[in-house]
């Protein structure tokens, strides 16, 4: 798959020809700003329902195998 990655990146070299100096990156298609919500509690999900859908539920928490990568 990594060689396919190289091939694709090769196709994408066409944008290198463009002069992008001073062009602002566009992250949002529609210019909205300051979308906020009130700090009011709303009903959430039922724990039992959620844990029933979990791959390895404990009685009240989600269980996972040992977390590697830390000696702490």
């Amino acid at each position, binding site marked *: 798959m990594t060689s396919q990655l190289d091939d694709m990146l090769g196709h994408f070299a066409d944008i290198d020809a463009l002069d992008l100096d001073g062009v602002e990156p566009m*992250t*949002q298609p529609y210019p*909205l*700003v*300051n*979308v*906020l*919500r*009130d*700090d*009011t*509690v*709303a009903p*959430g*999900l039922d*724990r039992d329902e*959620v*844990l029933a859908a979990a791959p390895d539920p*404990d009685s*009240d*928490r*989600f*269980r*996972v*195998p*040992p*977390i590697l*990568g*830390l*000696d*702490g």
Partner: protein
Amino acid sequence: MTWTHEGFEMVVGLEVHVELATNTKLFSASPNRFGDEPNTNIDPVTLGLPGALPVLNRRAVELAMRIGLALGCEIRPCVFARKNYFYPDMPKAYQISQYDQPLNVDGSLTLPDGTVIGVERAHLEEDTGKSTHVGGAGGRIHGSEASLIDFNRAGVPLVEIVSRPDIRSPEQARAYVAELRSILAAIGASDAKMEEGSMRVDANVSVRRPGEPFGTRCEIKNLNSVRSVGRAVDYEGRRQVDLISVGEVVRQETRHWDETDGRTHTLRTKEDADDYRYFPEPDLVPLAPSDEWIAEVRASMPPLPSARRACLAEATGQDAVSEAVSTVVDRGQDDYVHAVVAAGGDAARALIAVKEAFADEPASPRVPAEDLAVLTQMEVAGEVTSTQAKTLLAEIVAAGGGDARALAAAKGFEAMDTSELESMVDDAIAAQPDAWAKFCAGEAKAMGAIVGHIMKASKGQADGKAVSAILDARRG
């Protein structure tokens, strides 16, 4: 107080994560509450379920702005960013945070002694869930069989406050944390309790010879109290200097502070650190608080601890950095002291009384201000000795109030008048000629025997201060 070890100085920056005192989480309407049953404050956003979308909490932004203003920051238009990494307590496998355009920048925190510590930024981000490890020694990950994840805390609003590396001693580190905690509580942004995890401190420590470029730094985690901050920073500074002194190199890494053995230990090396692949959060839009909103927040801010200390110091004639002033302001009881003064009480005595006897009282104590005012007036007028006043104070606090005059009368407290005192002093000098001689020769300690004689003879009713004054005057 400077810290040096073998000619090196320490360079410390502190990163403090603060849980905001909102009703709901940063991006969803689940309750923001400590101590609930695991996984009872969850919703699709909290769990990172497919299709869930974040919506920003207005109150969290307000509190973050308060923090920025309290630290003298510039509040800027900002965006949110995704910090991508895998960890079981990270439901989306990315944390929504702020990266190159944070909300608050370029502030400072002035320590009580006047030292200014720069604050680089204070930005908003969401908290992770909590994992507990089962099967390993002491609940640690190492050797564990499994981990259990609780997502109640996932999504709780945090502000991360990053200081500049301006701290140069353990004392300054402690003072920074203590003052920051005080500020956060005073402005209502957070209850900032390290012991509950609503304020978490990481220290970045490096060492250098003064004037040289910064050395390699290590990040220290697991600092659970102000005291730990000081101890850990001191240990780490020494550890690094000792390494360098024997020709070794400080490795850039994250270290874990162990409170029991008083040392830091390697947690993980930075070389293995994740590339977080930050990019602007496409599910949120930019946040640009208007000048009007900023002005509103500024206007609604309670006074900062430094201002309150200055005010109390002026009212009571004490130093702003004195323990009495700091303690009383920290407890939020300075308004009460002002109330006692307004009711005619003696300011200096009121301050001492509140400091000494109101430790277990809330910010608004039960004792009516007028009651304490009367007691202080009695003490000033000499109607009761300071010892008697203390006794009355304890009773009044325990009862949540009381008429000091009535109580004094009931106990038969009354201060002795001056001529009575003078004759008791005569008797005591006659009874303790050696002590008197020593006292006149300059031994201040010798006064103790004479005063003790008088207190015994008067059954504790003599005013110790008045007696000392008479003795000093007699000595000439």
